[in-house]
């Protein structure tokens, strides 16, 4: 099992050597133009949030292949490890940021009838990790206008979609939502990723 330090090194190595880079301001301005256009088209901030998340989902389903090919990391042991890899390797290699991770899980269930041992906290559906961002390259120079603040816009909601899409491709159904955002005046930017369930491999129809 790789330690946290190894993940950090893998992430840095990927960023330095195996990533093509573009100008950060160009990236931030492109995303900004996208969000503003969505707001003009939909005129409803909840809908804009949903659309950003859907776009992120589509990106995530494709991104995971690229990520696994470049990082060559194996399967994660538990959900806790998933959180570590996402923060230290994933975000580092794509956005050159390393959000800090904190893990939590639901309280352990009452002992199963028959005396079985409940699975470890990170395998139970309902456990989650929280990513805390101290910088957000998508939101450079952005100030939300008042009606966006009132309407409940999560500016970087595309990131939640990316997390959901990419983890779904590796058999984990998660919910990723923003908890707080500095653009909204909160103290820090946080995303909570909650495991809903592990997806079983489904047998394609007509195989037997």
């Amino acid at each position, binding site marked *: 099992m790789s330690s946290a330090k190894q993940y950090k090194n893998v992430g840095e190595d990927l960023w330095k050597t195996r990533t093509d880079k573009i100008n950060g*301001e160009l990236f931030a*301005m492109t995303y*900004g133009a996208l969000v503003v256009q969505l707001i003009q088209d939909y005129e409803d901030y909840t809908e804009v949030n949903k659309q950003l998340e859907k776009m992120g989902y589509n990106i995530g389903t494709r991104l995971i292949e690229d990520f696994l090919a470049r990082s060559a990391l194996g399967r994660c042991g538990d959900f806790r490890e998933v959180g570590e890899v996402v923060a230290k390797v994933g975000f580092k290699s794509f956005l050159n940021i390393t959000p800090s991770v904190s893990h939590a899980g639901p309280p352990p269930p009452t002992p199963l009838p028959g005396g079985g041992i409940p699975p470890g906290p990170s395998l139970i559906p309902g456990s989650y990790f929280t990513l805390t961002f101290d910088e957000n390259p998508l939101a450079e*120079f*952005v*100030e939300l206008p008042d009606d966006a603040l009132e309407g409940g816009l999560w500016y970087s909601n595309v990131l939640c979609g990316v997390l959901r899409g990419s983890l779904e491709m590796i058999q984990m159904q998660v919910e990723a939502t923003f908890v707080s955002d500095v653009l909204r005046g909160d103290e820090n930017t946080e995303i909570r990723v909650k495991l809903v369930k592990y997806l079983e491999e489904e047998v394609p129809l007509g195989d037997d």
Partner: protein
Amino acid sequence: MSHHLFLLSPNDTPLYSLTHQSSKPTTAPSYPLSSNLPSWSTTTFAGTLSALSGAAGLNQAPAGGGAPRIGSGQGRNVVQMIAYASLDVIEELMRTNPAMYLKGVDKFNEWTVSAFITLGNMKFVLLHDGKNDDGVKAFFTDVWDLYVKTMLNPFHSAHTAIKSAVFDGRVRASARRHL
């Protein structure tokens, strides 16, 4: 010493204006118009105002160091008129002078108009009294920097009024520092 800043788009649309009372001491220029007026109106601003609009009936109640109520309609108009009257001169200078900071573009009684032309042809016009070239230049550079950052905000449309409270706060802080 008070300063009035106006940011104007290339089409002369006013985008932002600010009035700042400086706490720095300044040599009070003596001017003949003030000799008959009560002492509270001998601040530079009030002096100009009285001269232009007639002293009778004006009720510029000062507070503290004679700071006039800038919010009053007449005061505002006069200041704007002086600033915008210098626009012709500024535009002429723009074409010939490649420098960005144009100091002392125009004078009106004791007011000096300084201008700063950004590379995108935005005009920053500062109405002030007293000499403070270095401070004014530093202030203009700061305002330019803040203006560029505001333009990078995707929610701000170019050449529209700048309503951001953050921008306003930062410009005021810069004014306090340099002027």
